[in-house]
């Protein structure tokens, strides 16, 4: 091994530092440019390599916390059991009523010859890693392109919308949460078709809050109402629950409302998610020709 004198090292170091800083800056600029394109090769392979460390650690910590959690839960199991028995009885009565409604629904559908076209494939996935830096909130899931995951596919929990896939490796994928300020989700307050309160939901500086902008100030909006996706943003299908309105800064006829929403999906505590194998409908030729409709292809 080549031994360098201290003087040589001192002379060499500034040049190496300049070289490394330049290389890192070029990488950053490249990444900032390609952030929406999915061509994030270094990131994708870094994640794939890290998967071999993250997966066993996550499995171990999850099973350990589950074991200790189950011991702690034993104490409240008896009262919970009684409550559940009562709920089961109530639900049985409810199900009987719903069975009749389902049968009626089927009959009416057959009558109108409607076909269910809105079926979207669901791919369950486990969160194996969180963002190692505290500045961002992305997560890594244990499903990748080999499982059929593609860029921009929506990610949900049983509570509601979580975010979308922003980088896909063969075995893992990175997801950006809806709380990130760069994420924009087309949202509607209340039921789609019955409401004019359309806007864009994006992140705020608070982790448990998202903000809905551009909702006309003349539309009535109240805290407690639910917000759903519209399906018009070209990423998320319509009807996914985003969250519940917790605060409204009321606008006027000329200024829009500022609506604050608590995400329905428990973003802090989620362990399992589902990737919706949804691909947005292809835009018509006319729409594709519109200026700024899609990013121009590089020549």
């Amino acid at each position: 091994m080549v031994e360098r004198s201290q003087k040589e090292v001192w002379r060499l170091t500034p040049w190496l530092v300049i070289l490394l800083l330049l290389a890192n800056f070029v990488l950053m600029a490249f990444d900032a440019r390609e952030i929406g394109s999915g061509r994030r090769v270094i990131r994708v392979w870094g994640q794939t390599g890290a998967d071999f460390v993250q997966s066993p650690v996550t499995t171990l910590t999850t099973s350990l916390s589950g074991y200790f959690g189950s011991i702690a839960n034993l104490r409240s199991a008896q009262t919970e059991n009684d409550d559940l028995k009562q709920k089961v009885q109530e639900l049985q009565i409810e199900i009987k009523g719903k069975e009749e409604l389902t049968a009626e629904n089927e009959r009416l559908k057959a009558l109108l010859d409607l076909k269910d076209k809105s079926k979207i494939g669901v791919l369950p996935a486990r969160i194996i890693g969180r963002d190692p830096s505290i500045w961002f909130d992305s997560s890594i899931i244990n499903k990748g392109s080999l499982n059929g995951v593609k860029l921009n596919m929506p990610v949900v929990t049983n509570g509601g919308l979580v975010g979308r896939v922003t980088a896909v490796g063969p075995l893992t994928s990175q997801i950006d949460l809806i709380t990130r300020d760069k994420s924009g989700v087309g949202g509607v307050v209340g039921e789609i078709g019955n409401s004019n309160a359309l806007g864009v939901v994006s992140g705020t500086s608070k982790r448990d809050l998202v903000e809905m902008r551009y909702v006309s100030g003349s539309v009535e909006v109240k805290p407690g109402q639910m917000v759903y996706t519209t399906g018009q943003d070209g990423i998320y299908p319509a009807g996914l629950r985003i969250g519940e309105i917790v605060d409204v800064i009321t606008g006027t006829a000329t200024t829009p409302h500022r609506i604050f929403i608590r995400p329905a999906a428990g973003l802090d505590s989620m362990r399992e998610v589902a990737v919706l194998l949804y691909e947005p409908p292809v835009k018509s030729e006319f729409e594709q020709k519109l200026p700024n409709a899609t990013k121009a292809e590089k020549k």
Partner: protein
Amino acid sequence: MDNLKLTIALIVSVFLQWTLRNIAEPLAYVDLPLIIIVYAALQRDALKAVLFGSIAGLAIDALSGGLLGANGFSKTLIAFIVSELARRVYMDNLLLRIPVIAGASLLDDLVYYGLHRLLGQEPNVPIAATISYTLIGTTIAGTLIYFLLDLSMAQRSRKPRREMFPARRQTRRRNPIRLGK
């Protein structure tokens, strides 16, 4: 041997940084690779420190939602500044290293945040709170880790305990022969 130990410490710190946030959210406020990079820089081996900074930074960036290279940039810069500082100022005791790791953590966060702002990818977290928590977490963890690293390094473990703290100035003894006169 010390080089090998430091390299292993860096690899372990990167692995821990990747996984600790899964276990508990507050652990993400401790920047473990930065602690090891600053320790390497304090050994006056500038080349090793800047290489450590770049590699560990890129490893963290690969799994982060931030820009690839932002941590690499900030950590390389910190490694160089600390190694230059260590070249000029004697910092071989634990107490003097506490302000160094605190300053390094603060500067690292500021550079990281600044770079993201510059390239239009501003993180949406409360900045002052995030920087403060990281500063506290990294400084406390850094002090403990430096103590352990000092103990584990072969030559340093043989040092007498009093050398970990600043040497107290000793008053000169008067000549006992003269005093007897």
